[in-house]
């Protein structure tokens, strides 16, 4: 028992731990624990007052029991008492007990605030650190409310000890992460930046973390950190390997601090100041140079520390993406690592190169390593390394090497780990489409995919090949021939039958001239697969058969025989039965002409984003997009590969089995709102029909105010899978808004209700109303699928300064949304001062196990807080003149995007919020409006004038307000509406 022999522990504790360790069974352990719990309880309840040592010992035993996984329901008060002890060891155990158990008993927090306050004020650095660590470890909102104001003071106080500053910096960081609103920026911020100059490297290390976090939301306030960080970094990287003494780690000066400084710099664009930039580039070069020097130690610690800095340096170089020379050097350095004996380095080099591949400066340099990467794909033992190799091949692929990369990936697929097969399939499918020079290669590739890994070929992939074949008549004959050959294999995957069935049904006629693939041969080949296939495939094949009747009248009798067979007409599956009945009747009653019309070749599909790309993005999760969806380079590919343009991913993929003929009685539920069943709940609550309106009539102002709810309590993170803290995720925790977010937002500038967003899964509707500087918004989330959404969590995020400008209180919604159901979320909004950017709405949930996330712009724009003001012409002109400073005016001349209709324009201006003033402008064609923007802090008077010019189809819009940014912003918002 080493601890006991050291003689500094608590003997009773050591004995107890030994006893537990000696227990032979779980039962014996529980018995021993219960005995101990009874003992401790009696001591705590006993008449004799316990001394500090005993109390500490028993609390420590309780903690040990808790850590073994047993519930502890007493002893908290004794732990709290320990905090007021003036002995360090007793205080420490008290704080530890609270930090560890606080999750399960948050009432404790209130009891200890006083003790923490005393310790923070004690001027004893040891006690201050204990208190700060406790706050940092608990990090709850209550703690923030109690202490957020004190900590900045401790952090920048001249007389604080270094260790206290370190703890205070990180303590503040934790509180800021938990509740940023409780940590107002102030004059201390400038002094925090200057901690980067502190003599004590530990203080700098802690301060960099704090600044990195704060500057993300307040980049301008912390801008000065750039030059300080650069000079600090420069001093470190140019110092000799032992200069920094305590902070040298295996001959590497201050590796962690260097990494942190480099990460801080990645929060900003390249320095504007030429001298600072020069110095930084010098640093980056020094790091790259040092990587080439012989190692100062053979220890892996030395090379790891050195390479930690190197990789972070490369990240910064990639982040800047502006120094071709450095990018290429970085690439060469990584190239050396690709063959390093350390698996870690090979892995990291592959990963880092992936981002280099997307820079136009280093793309070519990355490509030179193709053989090494292919080799890694074949030979690496660690599946995660192989996966990185596959990622890199995908990223470095372009027209010049696509055939090689695709064929290597296909070869790899035959032996690939099951875990990554689907992803490889998606990648191959995307590359094959994107870089197809001729589409026969594309068709071959996809059919190979089905052959090799049919189970992993998702619907998206085989739908896509059908879309492309349908849209390109130059490949249809080849496709028909190829699927026909593929179907001749004795065992072929069901996906092959689906693709084959569809293509032959459409284009089988193109190969019917060859007696080896004459219509009867085609039919019997397909029909030989029929009975072993699933219902969905059989349904698809039935559609193929009816198409055959049209294409090849000679097969009519045979096929009618098949349709007429009892196994079809009386099939237990209603879909199959219906198809058989309908197709049989159709083929019997319809004339050839009608048949030819109904069963005509499918029209081309509209061009759209490949749904495969969307799926791959979903698989990779948010943030992985940059390396994957490259809209980069290759403009020449548009004609032939236009289908993969990164356009909105909201379109649905047509399901060939469901809608091949468009003959079905009812449209499939996902395609259009149906009149009954689950879909009904989704039918616009926003339509103008009075029945569907929720009762949201005008509320009296008092009631509106009194109904403002207190903010939702901070919710504990339920799942690690959700990377955003539930309470208030910062903008960097959520994905960027979807590409069409701005367009969707624009739709709501002049109206308050409508459908904000809709895709195959989800519909989000909005109803809102605004009074003065207050607003209330109802968001309706409709689950369009039949499957429950899980972990459903919509959150509102305030990027940048917005949280000081706009307060949005949200209520939590249920974490589950049943299929077809709709949930409602209420937002109370208060405009504190004028603002320019709308809040973001981040919606996350799991659908069928796959995480979904979506970020939209919430339709709250400054004009929502307009109060219309009526005034006479004279008043208007007087005020117009008063606002005559050039910066008070914003003007835009723009082309009309919509027909110029005076009534529509009027409605839009009223919807925008201003009053419309008649008889003010001498020209009756023009529109003049006035209003006041109400915010809590101030009111902004606004005047506007819109001059249409019907002949030129142009408008001139002029805004005058007392605040320059407001004029400009309103002008921009309004100009987009006409």
């Amino acid at each position, binding site marked *: *028992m080493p*601890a006991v022999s050291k003689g*500094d522990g608590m003997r009773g504790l*050591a004995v107890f*731990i030994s006893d537990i360790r000696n227990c032979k069974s779980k039962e014996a352990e529980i018995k021993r624990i219960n005995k101990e719990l009874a003992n401790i309880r009696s001591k705590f309840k006993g008449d004799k007052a316990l001394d500090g040592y005993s109390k500490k010992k028993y609390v*420590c035993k309780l903690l*040990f029991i808790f*850590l073994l996984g047993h519930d502890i329901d007493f002893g908290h008060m004794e732990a709290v008492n320990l905090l007021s002890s003036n*002995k*360090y*060891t007793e205080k*420490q155990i008290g704080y*530890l007990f609270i930090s560890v158990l606080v*999750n*399960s008993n948050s009432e404790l927090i209130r009891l200890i605030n006083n003790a923490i306050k005393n310790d923070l004020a004690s001027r004893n650095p*040891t006690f201050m650190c204990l208190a700060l*660590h406790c706050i940092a470890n608990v*990090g709850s909102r209550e703690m923030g409310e109690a202490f957020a104001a004190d900590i900045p003071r401790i952090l920048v106080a001249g007389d604080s000890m270094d*260790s206290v500053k*370190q*703890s205070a910096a990180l*303590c503040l*960081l*934790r509180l800021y*992460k938990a509740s940023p609103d409780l940590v107002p920026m102030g004059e201390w911020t400038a002094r925090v930046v200057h901690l980067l100059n502190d003599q004590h*490297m*530990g203080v700098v*290390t802690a301060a960099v*973390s704090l600044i*990195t*976090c704060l500057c993300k939301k307040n980049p301008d306030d912390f801008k000065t950190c750039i030059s300080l960080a650069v000079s600090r970094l420069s001093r470190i990287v140019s110092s000799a390997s032992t200069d920094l003494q*305590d*902070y040298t*780690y295996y001959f590497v000066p*201050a*590796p962690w*601090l260097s*990494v*942190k400084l480099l*990460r801080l710099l990645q929060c900003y664009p390249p320095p504007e100041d030429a001298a600072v930039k020069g110095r930084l580039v010098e640093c980056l070069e020094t790091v790259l140079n040092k990587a080439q020097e012989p190692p100062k130690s053979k220890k892996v*610690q030395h090379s*790891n*520390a050195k*390479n*930690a800095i190197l*990789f*972070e340096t490369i990240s910064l170089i990639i982040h800047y993406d502006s120094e071709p020379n450095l990018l290429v050097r970085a690439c060469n350095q990584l190239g050396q690592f690709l063959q390093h004996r350390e*698996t*870690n380095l090979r*892995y*990291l080099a592959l990963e880092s190169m992936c981002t280099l591949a997307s820079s136009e400066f280093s793309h070519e340099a990355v490509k030179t390593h193709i053989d090494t990467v292919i080799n890694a794909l074949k030979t690496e033992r660690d599946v*995660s390394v192989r996966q990185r190799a596959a990622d890199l091949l995908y990223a470095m692929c372009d027209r010049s090497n696509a055939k090689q990369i695709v064929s290597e990936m296909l070869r790899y697929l035959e032996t690939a780990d099951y875990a990554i097969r689907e992803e490889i399939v998606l990648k191959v499918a995307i590359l094959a489409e994107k870089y197809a020079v001729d589409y026969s290669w594309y068709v071959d590739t996809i059919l190979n995919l089905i052959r090799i890994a049919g189970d992993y070929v998702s619907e998206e992939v085989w739908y896509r090949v059908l879309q492309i074949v349908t849209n390109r008549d130059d490949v249809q004959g080849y496709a028909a021939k190829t699927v026909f050959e593929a179907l001749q294999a004795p065992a072929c995957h069901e996906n092959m039958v689906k693709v084959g069935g569809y293509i032959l049904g459409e284009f089988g006629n193109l190969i019917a001239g060859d007696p080896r693939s004459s219509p009867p041969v085609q039919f019997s080949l397909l029909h030989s697969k029929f009975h072993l296939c699933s219902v969905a495939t059989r349904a698809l094949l039935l559609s193929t058969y009816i198409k055959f009747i049209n294409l090849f009248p000679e097969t009519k009798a045979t096929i009618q025989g098949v349709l007429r067979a009892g196994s079809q007409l009386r099939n237990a599956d209603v879909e199959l039965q219906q198809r058989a009945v309908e197709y049989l009747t159709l083929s019997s009653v319809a004339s050839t002409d009608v048949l030819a019309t109904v069963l005509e070749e499918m029209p081309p599909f509209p061009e759209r984003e490949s749904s495969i790309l969307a799926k791959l993005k979903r698989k990779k999760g948010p*943030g992985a997009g940059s390396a994957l969806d490259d809209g980069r380079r290759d403009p020449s590919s548009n004609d032939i590969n236009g289908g993969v343009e990164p356009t909105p991913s909201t379109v649905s993929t047509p399901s060939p089995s469901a809608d091949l003929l468009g003959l079905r009685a009812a449209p499939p539920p996902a395609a259009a709102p149906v009149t009954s069943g689950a879909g009904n709940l989704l039918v616009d609550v926003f339509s103008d029909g009075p029945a569907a309106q929720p009762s949201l009539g005008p509320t009296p102002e008092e009631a509106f105010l009194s109904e403002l709810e207190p903010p939702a309590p901070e919710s*504990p*993170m*339920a799942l*690690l*899978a*959700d*990377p955003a803290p539930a309470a208030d995720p910062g903008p960097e925790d959520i994905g960027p808004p979807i590409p069409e977010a701005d367009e969707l937002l624009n739709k709501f500038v002049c109206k308050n209700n409508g459908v904000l967003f809709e895709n195959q899964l989800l519909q989000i509707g909005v109803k809102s109303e605004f009074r003065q500087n207050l607003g209330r918004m109802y968001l309706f989330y409709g689950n369009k699928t039949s499957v429950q959404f899980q972990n459903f969590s919509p959150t509102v995020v305030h990027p940048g300064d917005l949280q000081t400008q706009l307060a949005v209180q949200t209520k939590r919604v249920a974490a589950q949304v049943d299929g077809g159901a709709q949930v409602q979320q209420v937002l109370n909004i208060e405009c504190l001062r004028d603002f320019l950017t709308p809040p973001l709405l981040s919606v996350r949930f799991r659908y069928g196990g796959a995480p979904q996330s979506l970020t939209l712009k919430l339709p709250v724009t400054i004009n929502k807080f307009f109060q219309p003001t009526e005034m006479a012409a004279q008043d208007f002109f007087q005020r117009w003149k008063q606002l005559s400073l050039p910066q008070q005016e914003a003007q835009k001349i723009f082309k009309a995007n919509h027909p110029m209709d005076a009534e529509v324009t009027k409605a839009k201006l009223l919807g925008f919020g201003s009053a419309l003033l008649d008889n003010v402008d001498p020209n009756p064609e023009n529109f003049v409006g006035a209003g006041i923007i109400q915010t809590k802090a101030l009111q902004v008077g606004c005047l506007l004038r819109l001059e249409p010019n019907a002949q030129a189809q142009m408008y001139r819009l002029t805004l005058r307000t007392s605040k320059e940014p407001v004029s400009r912003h309103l002008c921009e918002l309004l100009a987009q509406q006409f």
Partner: protein
Amino acid sequence: MVWIRFILIQNRAGKTRLAKWYMQFDDDEKQKLIEEVHAVVTVRDAKHTNFVEFRNFKIIYRRYAGLYFCICVDVNDNNLAYLEAIHNFVEVLNEYFHNVCELDLVFNFYKVYTVVDEMFLAGEIRETSQTKVLKQLLMLQSLE
């Protein structure tokens, strides 16, 4: 935002020797994470990397004798920096406990928390100098 989500020390059998959480989890979730990490890490061999993807994060880990030291961070964080942060931490433990072994961590679990708090706080690296950390620990040791 980049920070350590948790630090775990486990032995091969899956017994937890330290669990330090920098994010709110309820007790069931903690237990689940502990089991998952153990399952993910113990199947890997010496030829594998010291990094493994874990849910939406990654685990940086290193094995010392029968103990796995694991740090869970964001996927875009610096792998090698955390790998060496683990080693730095282990060297401090080794110095502090004079040739640390698993039993030291068991019997002195309450001291291990102090060591962690000196070196990592709020999910960030607080102090990296072994000299400074050990000096502070010895000072605390001398207090009553």
